[in-house]
């Protein structure tokens, strides 16, 4: 796998599908019109809301699980080889199936007897006379049927794979399959084509109940065709998707359309099957076919939407999601007796379902997560189910550590913000072309450059407003996209209009609330000399006053790191003094500052280090003196009778200009030129040698880069 992040998202999807199963069974006793005896208990407060939700969840939860199972199966197969694959599957699927059944089947039987006794007022009803004969191979697989089907499908897929590998030595068949599959996914037609096998399988079968969709094959060890086709398509598809994981990103982009399709298909299904289940098997015909089509499309749309959402939003490693993902397998295996017990306990209480259902869910999850945490996570059971055993630690500890921004995560603790090899383009315009720039602890870094040099883009990358096309941006040792890092950052941007109706005091209070330990509003006002304007609405202030308020917002959080994008544009001398004074105080207090500016004297007055950016690259960086010496030019001015052209003909002269009779000569080696000047013109007066300012250095550097 080129990008291990994607697996976090799919782990989360698998956990979601399994936990959805828990919720599905928890709501089962609330389905209206439930025939007594079909489930362990019929609740006294039925709800169509619940039945609609259950119906929706049931459309896709198992198929989604099988897609993910197929994906991870191929991953495992290619990591461990055939032998390793089967050993792993034996341990993590076959053993739980056998041991789980031996433990769960009797407890389910006990719970069912208890529930049915309660339902029928103390006595178990006699079996109905017209009970259908048991199917061939009858065996109560219980909800563990999915483990059995996983094993059957693994055998089928691995054999199929061996067959394809033997016949298709050139790989052309596999490439064609990849192309077709990729095409289906890219065009969005996958959700319309993938249901076809299932629709076909359901069309020839007459004993399925529309409301429950793909028949649950929990009654017989002989695989049921419709179930095998439905879940087999899902597993094979997942397996094939692992051949081209880029497809995941397509769903990440297209989740809204898939979600819309899923909702539409679900509504269509409900319109046909009704919001309340009818338990009569379908009759073959147009209605059943239409339902099967809507159901199949809904199933795939839901699956793509959920996977897309997960890839989009849960791709980062997250300790809590990881914990839930690890727990979900155990929870699903164990949930049924726990959930049904609670259903029986509350079933006859005169309470509304909105009270009972959440109580059942909360109670079951407490029991299930509790048992996972104390009996599974750090024991051999966890080793068997999840392939690893975690050391015994409080679950909060790893997540807290993961969430906290800490300098220790970066190699160099002195670096507060870093851009490394960053490329960024807007369409065809290249804004940054491999920029490397570090902000060190406690320094003021002035970023200089002509318009369009990439200064603002660099700041936006540091602030997480943009993401680099290539290279990395780091802020306080973490990703700039994480808010925890940004909580130590103050920012003043160009061209921002704050809410005009709010008063200065209110704007500061609002912004200070974003920070963990901000300055008080009064201190901020005092610091930025805004006391007299505190109760004026922002919209009534002058341009310079508005900039000063924006500066106040940047510092009110007492930031460790401050980004100032051309802070003193359009300010009068007094306001600029206020800002400069505050910046010096912040630096003295240990704050690190990035300042972009066009005012070179501002950089000369404040900066510890200057970075000159041009054409999206760093062309020079160093102290003000270093930058100046880098282009070690000096200006010699004098009043002389020598002609411009004569001086220009001397070696090493960079430029000669004359202004009101005074000659200005730009050189690197001033001493030699002065000697020659004095020798050539005895009447030379007013000689003066000046080090070039930062302005000159800057102009030359950026000219060279261009």
């Amino acid at each position, binding site marked *: 796998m080129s990008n291990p992040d994607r697996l976090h998202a799919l782990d989360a999807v698998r956990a979601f599908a399994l936990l959805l199963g828990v919720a599905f069974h928890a709501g089962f006793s609330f389905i209206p019109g439930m025939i007594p005896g079909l489930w362990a208990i019929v609740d006294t407060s039925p709800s169509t809301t619940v039945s609609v939700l259950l119906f929706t969840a049931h459309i896709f939860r198992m198929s989604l699980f099988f897609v993910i199972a197929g994906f991870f199966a191929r991953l495992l197969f290619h990591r461990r080889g055939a032998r390793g694959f089967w050993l792993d599957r034996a341990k993590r699927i076959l053993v739980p199936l056998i041991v789980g059944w031996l433990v769960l089947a009797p407890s389910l039987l006990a719970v069912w007897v208890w529930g049915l006794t309660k339902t029928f007022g103390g006595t178990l009803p006699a079996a109905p006379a017209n009970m259908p004969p048991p199917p061939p191979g009858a065996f109560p697989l219980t909800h563990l049927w999915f483990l059995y089907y996983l094993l059957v499908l693994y055998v089928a897929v691995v054999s199929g794979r061996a067959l394809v590998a033997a016949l298709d030595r050139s790989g052309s068949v596999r490439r064609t399959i990849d192309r077709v599959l990729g095409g289906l996914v890219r065009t969005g037609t996958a959700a319309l084509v993938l249901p076809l096998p299932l629709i076909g399988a359901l069309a020839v079968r007459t004993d399925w109940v529309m409301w429950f969709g793909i028949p649950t094959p929990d009654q017989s060890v002989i695989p049921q065709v419709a179930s095998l086709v439905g879940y087999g398509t899902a597993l094979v598809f997942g397996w094939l998707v692992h051949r081209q994981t880029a497809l995941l990103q397509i769903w990440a982009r297209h989740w809204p359309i898939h979600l819309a399709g899923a909702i539409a298909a679900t509504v269509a299904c409900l319109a046909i099957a009704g919001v309340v289940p009818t338990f009569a098997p379908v009759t073959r015909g147009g209605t059943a076919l239409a339902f099967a089509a809507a159901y199949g499309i809904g199933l795939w749309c839901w699956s793509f939407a959920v996977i897309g959402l997960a890839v989009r939003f849960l791709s980062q490693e997250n300790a809590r999601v990881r914990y839930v993902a690890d727990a979900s397998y155990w929870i699903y295996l164990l949930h049924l007796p726990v959930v049904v017990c609670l259903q029986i306990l509350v079933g006859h209480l005169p309470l509304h379902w909105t009270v009972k259902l959440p109580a059942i869910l909360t109670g079951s999850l407490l029991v299930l997560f509790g048992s996972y945490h104390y009996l599974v996570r750090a024991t051999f059971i966890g080793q068997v189910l999840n392939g690893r055993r975690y050391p015994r630690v409080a679950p909060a500890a790893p997540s807290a550590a993961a969430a906290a921004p800490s300098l220790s995560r970066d190699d160099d603790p002195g670096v507060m913000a870093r851009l490394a090899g960053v490329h960024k383009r807007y369409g065809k315009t290249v804004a940054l072309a491999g920029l490397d720039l570090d902000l060190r602890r406690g320094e003021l870094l002035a970023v200089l450059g002509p318009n369009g040099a990439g200064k603002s883009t660099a700041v936006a990358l540091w602030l997480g407003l943009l993401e680099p096309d290539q290279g990395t941006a780091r802020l*306080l040792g973490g990703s700039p996209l994480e808010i925890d890092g940004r909580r130590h950052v103050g*920012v003043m941007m160009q*061209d921002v*209009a704050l809410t005009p109706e709010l008063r200065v005091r209110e704007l500061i209070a609002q912004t200070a*609330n*974003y920070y963990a330990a901000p*300055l008080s509003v009064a201190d901020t006002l005092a610091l930025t000399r805004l006391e007299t304007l505190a109760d004026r609405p922002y919209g009534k202030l002058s341009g310079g006053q508005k900039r000063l308020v924006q500066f106040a917002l940047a510092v009110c959080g007492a930031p*460790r790191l401050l980004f100032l994008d051309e802070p003193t544009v359009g300010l009068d001398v007094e306001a600029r003094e206020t800002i400069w004074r505050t910046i010096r105080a*912040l630096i003295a207090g240990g704050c690190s500052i990035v300042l972009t500016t066009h005012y070179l004297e501002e950089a000369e007055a404040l900066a510890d280090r200057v970075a000159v950016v041009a054409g999206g690259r760093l062309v020079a960086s160093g102290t003000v003196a270093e930058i100046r010496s880098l282009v070690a030019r000096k200006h010699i001015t004098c009043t002389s009778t020598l002609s411009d052209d004569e001086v220009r003909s001397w070696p090493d002269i960079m430029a000669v200009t004359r202004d009101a009779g005074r000659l200005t000569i730009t050189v690197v080696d001033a001493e030699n030129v002065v000697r020659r000047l004095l020798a050539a013109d005895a009447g030379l007066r007013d000689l003066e040698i000046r080090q070039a300012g930062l302005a000159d250095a800057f102009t030359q550097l950026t000219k060279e880069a261009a």
Partner: protein
Amino acid sequence: MTALSTALTTDRMLTASMPLGRVLGAYASEMTFELKRVLRTPGFAIPFLLLPLPIYLFFGVAMAGPAVAKQPSLANYLASSWMVYAVMGPALFGVGCTLAQERDAGLLKLKRAMPAPAGAYIAAKMAMAMILGAISVMSLMVAGLLVGNVTLSVPQLALMGAIMTVGTLPFSAIGLFIGAHVSASAAPAIVNLIFLPMLWLSGLFFPLPKIIEPFVVVWPAFHLNQVALGAAGVTEFRFIAPAISAAILAGVTFLFGGLAIRRLARKG
């Protein structure tokens, strides 16, 4: 100066996360200031807070008088319909137009760069629409009871009002979606393009021509009305199961809200 130096020189550990209390505080302050902002803009607040009442009195009570006399239960339906109107305005215009405006002003980008908690801005906008909607719904409830011949009990009416208040959410989500995509100058036009057809084609105020009737289901306004009537236990004028309507509204909220949030997170 001293405050600054203490705040800065104490070597505050970077490992400390923001306490949950302060995060919630940031949400609350964002909402408070959003509400303040709106109430200080009378040109915005008055049409949405005060206008629905006279409009209801004129159209829903005075003009509908003869029809209600013939069919008394119509009064309940009309009250519910006008409540839907009352919540649509602040949600669509209040959220949509101000979002577009503040996005153009670069404010959203600044808030995103500053550590404003993700979602605080959006939650504040939605809460603002909810509060404005609730205030004008309440004025309609009182008017309906006093002069509107509404036959519902006070608890029924209160439940209806509560549904309406929560019912601002799908419209706020549509507002967010529009505001996240169009410029400040285009936003009012686009919102009107949604608002007006929805108002008239969702069958809230008068019977629709038979040919348009089946298409009421495309408008969230129709569904909100159905949910509110269902919750209040009104059995007439029910065309669709309230649970399905509620699910559709939830879907609309989720879809448009999700698309808007995605867009805002990427482009600001």
